[in-house]
């Protein structure tokens, strides 16, 4: 079963596909009728979606300062709201993270991955009744790639040199080959709007399964079903209400009293208490976000690889996951990629806590005296506790860590990326290339470990335009090894996305792409009476 069929099957389980749609798509993907039929029956018995009802979400992250302009989506609240009313050209497979069609039906790269041709879906209507055209697509991308744009996707799309329409197709020309181009278009800022949203970026008119009926920034957004939705495998509830709830206790109270059906950002400290509530289900999804301890490779004493290795071996990753994440996470291996990425380099040995090895490298480094680690609660939840835990595990290796707690206000300006050793957080990126390009490329603005290696940069650029998956995987493996053994990042853990719902909520898709079922939670679930 290939990835696409796996995806289809998962959509059946989630109630997303009718039999006819499934058979059609599965057979188009090269599966025989008998196999497809059996596959569908198995999956369909697992779940039968219901339509109707009013879904209420209580989400952290909304603010009065939120903008309805997709280019400026930033908060978790707007991420989820945008996914309700808008569509991108491409989506990512919830299970594998690979690019799957949305408003773009299919795509074709040139041999060097510099020119990409996207076939745009026909017969899709915007909420105002106007039909989606290639011009809307071109205008949208042009708005987000304008050098003067304040779009959150500006960085992701930086390599696009030319955007043009060729018949019904979109043709993108890049300044350099990029095999991940389709996935980049799944960025949540890139909602296709009528004429790109140039005249009225705040109109919230899209092609998504729900129409926005009311919106108050940071307070509440309501939706009604889009009856003309071009897809039938989503949008099961009749209406949606998204309420901004920034207080963790308020979210928990609202969920356990049944006032909302779903909440995000459950605190690992209270998740076990919440579990006891009779009507509540904890939804934990492996994610790409990771907590890091960053050392600047170009500043003493961290310019010494033996000291860096010593500090890596002195990290007790298992304890971190248990104590700081409450068990809701996976141990890291000192490079920023985990198995949720397509082309994850498998089989790299897991680094474990080893005080002896740490002591050995520490001695070899010739460093003496304490090492100053700066931290704050804003670096990641439990940041200060994590630093103190680390201080303890280092002590056993004979390394003395001095923990300095910095004020949360201004942490990102004054400490992160400035001071030589601090704690921080990285959200995931859609592709390995993106993750490395953002934080490990020598010239990257956010190269917060000051990891500067020409051979790494060269490999990164090579991998970017390599269309052969096997070759590409090898390159990513080599890069991971460089970062793991010589980089400045200590990466103890990847945090799961911990959300919770009432038991009425069915069909939740654990999407590895991002939090809240990659933002699609409201369009994918249904309510059981």
């Amino acid at each position, binding site marked *: 079963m290939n990835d696409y069929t796996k995806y289809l099957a998962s959509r059946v389980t989630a109630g997303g596909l009718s039999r006819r749609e499934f058979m059609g798509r599965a057979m188009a993907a090269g599966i025989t009728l008998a196999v497809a039929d059996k596959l569908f029956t198995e999956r369909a018995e697992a779940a039968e979606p219901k339509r109707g009802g009013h879904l209420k979400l209580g989400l952290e992250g909304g603010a009065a*300062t939120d903008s309805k302009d997709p280019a400026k989506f930033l908060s978790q609240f707007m991420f989820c709201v945008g996914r309700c009313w808008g569509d991108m050209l491409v989506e990512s497979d919830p299970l594998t993270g690979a690019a799957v069609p949305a408003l773009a039906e299919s795509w074709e790269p040139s041999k060097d991955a510099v020119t990409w041709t996207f076939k745009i879906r026909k017969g899709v209507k915007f909420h105002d009744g106007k039909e989606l055209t290639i011009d809307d697509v071109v205008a949208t991308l042009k708005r987000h790639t304008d050098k003067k744009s304040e779009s959150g996707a500006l960085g992701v799309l930086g390599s696009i040199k030319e955007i043009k329409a060729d018949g019904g197709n979109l043709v993108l020309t890049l300044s350099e080959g990029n095999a991940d181009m389709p996935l980049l278009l799944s960025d949540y800022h890139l909602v296709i709007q009528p004429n790109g949203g140039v005249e009225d970026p705040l109109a919230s008119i899209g092609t998504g399964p729900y129409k926005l009926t009311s919106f108050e920034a940071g307070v509440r957004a309501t939706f009604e079903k889009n009856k003309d939705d071009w897809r039938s495998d989503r949008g099961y509830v009749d209406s949606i209400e998204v309420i901004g709830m*920034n207080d963790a206790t*308020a979210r928990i109270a609202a969920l356990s009293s049944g006032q909302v059906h779903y909440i995000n950002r459950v605190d690992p400290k209270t998740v076990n208490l919440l579990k006891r509530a009779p009507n509540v289900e904890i939804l934990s999804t492996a994610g790409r976000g990771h907590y890091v301890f960053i050392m600047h490779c170009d500043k003493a004493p961290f310019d010494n690889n033996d000291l860096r290795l010593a500090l890596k071996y002195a990290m007790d990753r298992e304890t971190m996951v248990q104590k700081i994440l409450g068990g809701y996470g996976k141990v890291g291996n000192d490079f920023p990629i985990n198995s949720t990425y397509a082309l994850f380099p498998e089989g790299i040995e897991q680094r474990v806590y080893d005080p002896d090895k740490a002591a050995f490298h520490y001695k070899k480094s010739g460093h003496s005296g304490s090492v100053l680690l700066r931290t704050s609660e804003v670096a990641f939840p439990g940041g200060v506790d994590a630093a103190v835990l680390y201080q303890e595990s280092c002590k056993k290796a004979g390394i003395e860590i001095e923990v300095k707690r910095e004020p949360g206000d*201004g942490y990102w300006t004054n400490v992160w990326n400035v001071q030589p050793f601090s704690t921080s957080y990285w959200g995931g990126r859609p592709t390995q290339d993106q993750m490395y390009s953002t934080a490990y490329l020598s010239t990257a603005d956010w190269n917060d470990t000051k990891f500067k290696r020409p051979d790494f940069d060269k490999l990164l650029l090579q991998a970017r335009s390599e269309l052969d998956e096997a070759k590409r995987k090898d390159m990513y493996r080599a890069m991971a090894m460089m970062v793991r053994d010589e980089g400045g990042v200590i990466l103890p853990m990847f945090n799961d996305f911990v959300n919770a719902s009432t038991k009425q909520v069915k069909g939740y898709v654990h999407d590895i792409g991002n939090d809240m079922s990659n933002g699609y939670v409201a369009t994918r679930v249904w309510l059981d009476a």
Partner: protein
Amino acid sequence: MTNPAPSNILPGLRLRQRFPLLALILERFVLSIILLFAVSILIFGGLEALPGDFATTYLGQSATPQAVANIRQDLGLNRPVTTRYVEWLGNAVQGDFGTSWASKNSVSEQIGKRLGNSLFLAGFAAVISVPLAVGLGMLSVHFRNRMPDKIINVISLAAISLPEFFIGYLLILFFAVKLGMATFPATVYDSMGFVERLKAIALPTATLVLVVLAHMMRMTRAAILSVMSSAYMETAELKGLGALRSIVKHAAPNALAPIINVVALNLAYLVVGVVVVEVVFVYPGMGQYMVDAVTVRDMPVVQACGLIFAAVYIFLNMIADILAIVANPRLRHPR
């Protein structure tokens, strides 16, 4: 000429002699305006001195230098502080607080809505808590040092000792989660009916009442008690006036000034100090609005909120002073 010449030179003095009350009120008013002006400088200067700036905070880790530069250019942050201050104040005086940097909406418009919500909640809490506090205060004076007085005191002291978020959580736990009686979250929105709105704010109102009740009640009690020890109260007692009647008719009016003061202070608190309650109950008021804006350094919003909060405080204090002067004629003639 009957009119003495000096009065033309010193019209203020004449005004003061003829209408001492009006003069005092005017003086108080002018003072308030000056104070507000000084506060505006403090707010603007203080925010300028904050670490971190809007462009980087707003974009967070997804910021590119290009995007940061674009935003700074766009907002005119390169211009000198004084120019921006004068421009801001000039517009603010006309009720225009500019547009939010983050959402590009009109701040005045958004504040109109948020302030309305805050005033609605505060007003409702005041309507319940002020009469209740004054009434309970009188009652506890009447029963002083006996059982009802002690009960009132213990309960109100307990309420004031608990932080408001804790009271809020307790109310949520009992009335929303366990009993399922009350509406939670207390989110109100435009299309909501009045009755629905009242239902939604029941729990936050109860929290606020509990928080401010004790302060006002105890001040009422203390003020009346101090009047009760004066000679004319003894006279009232001796001439055979009933205890409750002498409290209400003779003691209470003379204790008005301190009571008005503490009530005003608590009203101001109800409007500007309820950030925590708004967050806990997910109530879209001014406090929540300002907190959101501070986190992303949305300066026009923070400045506007700061100025309005200051204005509410100054205005209510002014009203309290004026009412105290009206209630107590002795204050009209400074010694």
